[in-house]
């Protein structure tokens, strides 16, 4: 749990993924497209980390997106947040992007 929080606060945008998860790929692509340069952590071989993510309420466990150290959701949530403009706002507030 602490390890997740620790990693999540190291950079403005942090995404926990699995290499086999294509939904994760979509969200990564979106962040790159926005110029956000997220920090990516693959939890394929880390069941403890995956459990910690679930305990934090991440459902599904991946992709777990943290902006400014706070969990903002999984794939479906990110798309919604992007469409109503709040994703960009959160990224700007966390200084992951500038415009």
């Amino acid at each position, binding site marked *: 749990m602490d390890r997740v929080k620790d990693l999540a606060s190291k950079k403005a945008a942090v995404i926990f993924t699995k290499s*086999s998860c*294509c*939904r994760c*790929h*979509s*969200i990564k*692509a*979106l962040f790159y*497209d*926005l110029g956000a340069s997220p920090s990516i952590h693959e939890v394929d071989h880390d069941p403890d980390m995956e459990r910690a993510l679930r305990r934090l309420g991440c459902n599904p466990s991946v992709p777990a997106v943290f902006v400014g150290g706070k969990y903002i959701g999984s*794939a*479906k949530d990110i*798309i*919604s947040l*992007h*469409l*109503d*403009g709040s994703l*960009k706002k959160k990224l700007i507030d966390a200084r992951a992007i500038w415009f």
Partner: protein
Amino acid sequence: MAEFSPRTDTSTDGETEDKALGLYNSSHGLVVSDASDKSRDQKTLRRLAQNREAARKSRLRKKAYVQQLESSRMKLTQLEQELQRARQQGIFISSSGEQSQSMSGNGALAFDVEYGRWVEEHNRRVSELKGAVSNHAGDGELRIIVDGVVAHYEDIFRIKSDAAKADVFHVLSGMWKTPAERCFLWLGGFRSSELLKLLITQLEPLTEQQLLAIGNLQQTSQQAEDALSQGMEALQQSLAETIAGSLGSSNSSGNVANYMGQMAMAMGKLGTLEGFIRQADNLRKQTLQQMHRILTTRQSARALIAINDYSSRLRALSSLWLARPRE
């Protein structure tokens, strides 16, 4: 040097033409003084005759098209009635007799019929909207009809979600749409960003603020679409690698275990397709809702009418295409 001499060639051609047009007077040779006027008239007359002929042929072709359309329409009505009857009686008419095939086929067929009904209802609602707009209905009345259309849109996303659970490949195939609509198919439906591009041109005048908001919405929609497309590509690649990984020399027990394992993995990957369709439909639904929030009631009405007109054109194009005469 054999050089092309335009003057010589032209005069030769001109002479032949003038002869054909009877401009050569038997005693005087080429009648020069009013030959140019006569030749102009003759050329005009010939052109008019050709136009008449072309117009006549065009009318005949149009008649043939219309006849084809009429017979296609009758056939279509017949088929629709048959489907309705079969559905009511709960009979599935399958060409094979196989149970498992008819199960998934049933899902596809049921969806096609439901979609057809949804389109009819949608068209009815938009006609009502058009009527209200042309009768200068008040904002209050317009809002009720507009909200109804938007709510009805949500119905189709729910229906599609159920259909994707039953037969994701049927939804992905777009076979439930007409051919011309299928040209623009993206992840089992329309592209929101394209719809918004259409609206920006059709909805003038928009305030500065609205223009900005719609432009933004179009851009974010496009970004989300691109992200989902990339996810799909990753899925395809991953699936290809898994299948390739299951190849190799047969016969050893290790390879059989490998085969089973890889097939199980491939099945898992195929399972994620439904999620992608759902994400794409969510994107469509939310884009429509956002658009509705940005625009005034009257503008939303015009937007919905424009979208419906555009789709109707595509469907008409499909009918023309299907009925085109083949030589």
